[in-house]
């Protein structure tokens, strides 16, 4: 790898680490938004905010190479959209959202640990940090 490519990779790696470190806080915002909507399921604005946060996490995290994290954020977004379509927040869907958020927590922590260690993820591990190209998430609507 040339010096230029190495510098480029290091810069991108630094950006990825910075973004990974911000994931727990972003997840906290998403969790708070989902909880707020869960307490007032008739509030369309709260639902839109939660959807928007999940949608943004899905796209941005995926572009930073965190495929598994992106997929779990996508699962939250899809579940919220199903709720909007159904006009209600069913227990089953809320359980799916809670599970996805917990999984996303794990992926974020794993991603941070791996990137801070400065080594590429071993094969078959580190779902939160995928080497590009990322695994596809469910089709965007």
């Amino acid at each position: 790898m040339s010096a230029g490519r190495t510098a480029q990779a290091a810069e991108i790696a630094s950006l990825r680490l910075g973004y990974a470190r911000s994931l727990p806080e972003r997840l906290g915002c998403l969790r708070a938004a989902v909880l707020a909507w869960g307490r007032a399921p008739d509030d369309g604005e709260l639902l839109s905010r939660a959807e928007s946060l999940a949608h943004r996490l899905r796209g941005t995290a995926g572009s930073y190479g965190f495929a598994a994290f992106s997929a779990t954020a996508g699962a939250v977004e899809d579940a919220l959209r199903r709720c909007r379509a159904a006009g209600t927040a069913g227990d089953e869907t809320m359980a799916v959202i809670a599970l996805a958020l917990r999984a996303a927590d794990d992926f974020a922590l794993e991603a941070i640990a791996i990137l801070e260690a400065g080594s590429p993820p071993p094969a078959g591990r580190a779902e939160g940090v995928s080497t590009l190209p990322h695994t596809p998430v469910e089709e965007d609507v």
Partner: protein
Amino acid sequence: VNEKQLRRRAYALREAMIEMTPPLVLVAEDDDDVRRLVATALRKDGCSVIEAADGSALLDHIGSALLFGNVRGELDPIAVVVSDIRMPGPSGLEILAHLRRSDIGVHVVLMSAHVDDAVRADAERYGADALLAKPFDIDELLDIVRRGLPSVGLRPDPASASS
């Protein structure tokens, strides 16, 4: 050395300087994290990048780049526009349509998290050179932009790119 020769040399020098200038890429994206990732990767790849957080800023930057580029004698001062479709102000599709109507020679790469048949049809109809679904692989974006750059052989080595 007569005046004609001096002018010829000055013209040749100007042409050489224009060719050695890093290709200008405009990046429009309202998500700061995605914009930072794309802009950093492009800069490290040897491009000169101007960032816009919405459609209005992108239009302003296009106008400025064309104005000052043409003053410098560049026919196509903007090499590539990389733009989100949905963002505040004019959308990426609207800006693409404006560019094509104005016959401005620029390679346009659109990005969207909402790629469906209708968006694909619009992008094709308005003449987008590429449509990238989010989330995307940053290396894929770099490849697409490189394909849109003129005079690829003259692009500076990324090692020498400082911005």
